[in-house]
């Protein structure tokens, strides 16, 4: 799995960091991907899918067969 945060679309609402706290964080009001993150972990994969589904700005892209 690969997770892409499209910063140009992000409205910094913080939804992703609450839905997927192991993948996203907010620093100084800006959304950031946490690195490194174990995207082979099924729990984290579920968080990523949920964040992509709920993001109101559609700023999160999950590529299921992408490299982590």
């Amino acid at each position, binding site marked *: 799995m690969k997770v892409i945060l499209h910063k140009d679309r992000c*409205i*910094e*609402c*913080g*939804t992703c960091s*609450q839905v997927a706290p192991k993948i996203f964080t907010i620093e100084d009001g800006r959304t950031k991907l946490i690195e490194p993150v174990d995207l082979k972990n099924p729990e984290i994969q579920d968080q990523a899918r949920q964040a992509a589904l*709920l*993001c*109101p*700005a559609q700023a999160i892209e999950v590529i299921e067969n992408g490299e982590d």
Partner: protein
Amino acid sequence: MEKIEARVVSHRLLNSYIHHLVLRPLDSREINFKAGQFVLFQITPEITRAYSIANPEHIRDRLEFIIDVRPGGPGSQFTQRVKKDDKVVLHGPLGYFTLRLRKVAKVFVATGCAIAPLKSMIETSLHHKDTYAISLLWGLRHLVDIYLDKHFQELESEHSNFSFTLCISRPEKSNPYFVGRVTEAIEAAIGEQADYYLCGREAMIGDVKEILRRRGVAEEDIFFEGFDSKVC
């Protein structure tokens, strides 16, 4: 995070483009949220939109929203379409921009429909019998944009520690309000130790933060959330 199935119990216009929605959970559950938080509306299976809760946190049986439909996107169209008794799926509550019940004065600064989370915070503070000074500076552009002015004026007359300044930046005629932007009105509101809550467009937030910094307000006393109309 909860999924909340709710029903529209009220939908009215506050001016020609501001919609006021009240939703109640279908299962009559209480919604535990913090003043300032938002929920996601499920617009379509693929699209959500974030809207701030406008009611105070002690009212837990319903959620109130103030939505500007001028951006015209999927959320705006959904808001215009939705009617009383319609079912709406919500996710939340979410968000970190929340009220701190610290024993200091509070200054709230909003522009446009970014008043929604601040309305929740102000009404929550007043409900907690906060005796410290609470000020609201609210910026709108034209006189025809005005809504909820009577609501805040009533709160002002009921609570001696609450003051309300409506700032009209481009008035068409003489009026009793502050003529100018919130960035001009804020200068007079800075005084004693206070927490500052800013909500609106990022440019306004940046300008007000700069004024506060220049006047010696500590960074940790400033809380803010940007309202971005690119996703509405």
